[in-house]
């Protein structure tokens, strides 16, 4: 938590859902940013509040082959050379919500007031100048961590970062890592 606010090219994003305590500090931190019009681009939700207190936290996973961009009829979503999949270009986006429907992680949200799709861009304005994403600097549980693979391996010997997701017959490789039980290689969703 107290790490210096500096990044290097080897830093990656690691998400560990089991640690999430649902405090929404990440949402508040994200919403402080003017780039997003004070809307949070990270989403914390109860899984099933009637039966459990468990929450999930979702950032954009920055897919290698982003389906959100592939289904966009206006070519408004682009992936840059660093692998960051950007929010819709406001001049191009027609608000059709194809991406909202298509993303396997439920990330893009259409902001009705702007008639625009907005999504997490891994705080590109920060990470590109060596700062960590806002959410990862405030998360009190370590559910969100931004650092190197070596650091995470040292800190969390019982978990393995996974960036391959299998949705039925669809395989999605991502830039963002999900922490899974030690030895896991992929997350399968049936």
């Amino acid at each position, binding site marked *: *938590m107290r790490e210096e606010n500096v990044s290097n090219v080897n830093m990656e994003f690691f998400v560990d859902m089991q640690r999430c305590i649902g405090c929404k500090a990440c949402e508040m931190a994200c*919403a402080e940013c003017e780039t997003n019009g004070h809307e949070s681009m990270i989403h914390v939700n109860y899984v099933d509040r009637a039966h459990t207190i468990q929450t999930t936290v979702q950032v954009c996973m920055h897919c290698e082959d982003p389906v959100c961009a592939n289904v966009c009829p206006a070519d408004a979503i682009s992936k840059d050379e660093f692998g960051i999949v950007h929010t819709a270009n406001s001049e191009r986006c027609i608000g059709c919500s194809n991406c909202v429907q298509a993303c396997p992680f439920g990330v893009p949200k259409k902001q009705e007031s702007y008639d625009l799709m907005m999504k997490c861009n891994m705080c590109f304005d920060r990470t590109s100048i060596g700062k960590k994403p806002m959410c990862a600097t405030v998360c*009190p549980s370590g559910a969100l961590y931004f650092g190197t693979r070596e650091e995470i391996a040292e800190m969390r010997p019982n978990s393995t970062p996974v960036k391959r997701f299998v949705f039925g017959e669809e395989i999605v490789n991502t830039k963002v890592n999900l922490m899974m039980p030690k030895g896991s290689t992929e997350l399968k969703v049936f």
Partner: protein
Amino acid sequence: MVSAGAGNKKAFGLDRGSNNYSDLEYAEVIIVAGANVSETFPTLTHWIWKARDRGAKLIVIDPRVIPLARTADLHLDVKPGTDSALYGAMLNYLHEKDLLDHDFINNHTSGFEETLAAVKTHTLSWAEQVTGIQKEKIQQAAEWWGKAKTSFLLHARGIEHHSKGVDNVVGCINLVLATGRIGKPYCGYATITGQGNGQGGREHGHKCDQLPGNRDITNPEHRKYIADVWGIEEKDLPGKGLSAYEIIEAIHRGEIKGLLTICFNPLVSLPNSNYVREALEKLEYYVAIDFFLNETARHADLVLAGSLQEEEEGTTTSAEGRVIKINKAIDPPGDAKTDTSIILELASRLGAKDKFTYENSEAIFNELRVASKGGTADYYGITYQRIVENMGMFWPCPSLDHPGTPRLWEDRKFKTPDGKAHFNPAPYRPPGEVTDNEYPVVLTTGRVVSQYLSGTQTRRIGKLVGQYPEPQLEIHPELALKFGIEQREVVKVSTRRGEGLFPANIVDTIRKDTVFIPYHWPGKLSANLLTPGTLDPVSKIPEFKVCACKLEPQGHIAPPAEKSSAFKSS
């Protein structure tokens, strides 16, 4: 008004958490008792996870499946008001199985035999009956605790805000002392004191029975020392005062007629709000200093606009006993003044200007350094410069070349009169109010992560209000079925003191005999309309955490939370 403080003084002769949190990192077993860490002290979560990443076992004691309990190795869902029965049974078990540190007990403690004798009848089966926790779980907790080589026990208001808060605290400490795991690396014990200088306020002398440095206001030597520091006659120092709730009682009795408060909103934060309101109405003169006009300040004859932490320079002492510097970021707006300047001006108008001649906040801190010197909470070696250079300094720090004391008791020299750590007998006794036919359900109260204390700040911030807009009645589906309550149905909750209307949130994550309401709201949404003012005989803390209530569904579903009246302040 601090059960943890009273318990720690009895056991250690000193009122501070014994360790800083980095001692959690390699603890083998961690007990978190009555502390909804994830919602009330979220930054502690990652310390606990650091230990868990190294294989630590986590035991959470709470009537609800709080976020930390969801993944805990063991969750003891204790019935509110029965905590001391659990600790008693665990101590008894440690003795039976001889999971004790005899060397430590013999050489560094006193009172073990009496303490053990007091819980002789607290068997696992008996404890299961009383606490509602399966005896296998209690046994497992005691086994893990007894056999660990390193450990950390943390507790907070969940065990302290009881009419036997002190019993609960010493019950926890007894478990720590019995295993001798204190004053060593990764062997810790601490209460999680409140964030806003909850620790510092105590040793600075804000408590009605204390003088700076944790000195005792009834001790003639302590009085003499402080009178000399302040340049006054010892006889001019007042004697022991009343704690917060006792002040409300004394107003009722007509013994107190005037009141000055700073950042205090008892109409929301003290139990039995109707009784508190009656007291406020009886006051002849009331001056409230606060940064926003809170519900209580509406009863004031005069309101002085004070400052937020961001608007004033000073220090705060964290739950770890770490003194931290806070810097002024902005000026108080409009006619508002810093709290310090208001107090200095009051002193001046009262004719004591010559005693309050501080040039700046550092000069005030330097006086505290001298005033605390030689006391158990010795700040003398801590200067503004050292705080900044070291990212905070831990008291006791008696001299300028002393490094501070992150971990207490490494020297085994306890601050009690006999220099030993004291076991204190804490046999179980029932809470101040138990359920009966008329009031058949246990009510407990607490907090949510997006609101802070009485909400004077946080109920004004839109996004935080949006996160949890109104107090809900958390209730188990079986209990809801019994009373015919549906999801989000408005329920009248009443106790012997008052009633309120709350929408039901039916969840599996609470005991079947207990309902929960968070307390941050005023007026008809106040959980403290319901809570009792029964005080702990030693600490004088009221029993926020347990009483008996009645549930009556009102036959209509509450409107969606966004449209609720929670946005209005009363």
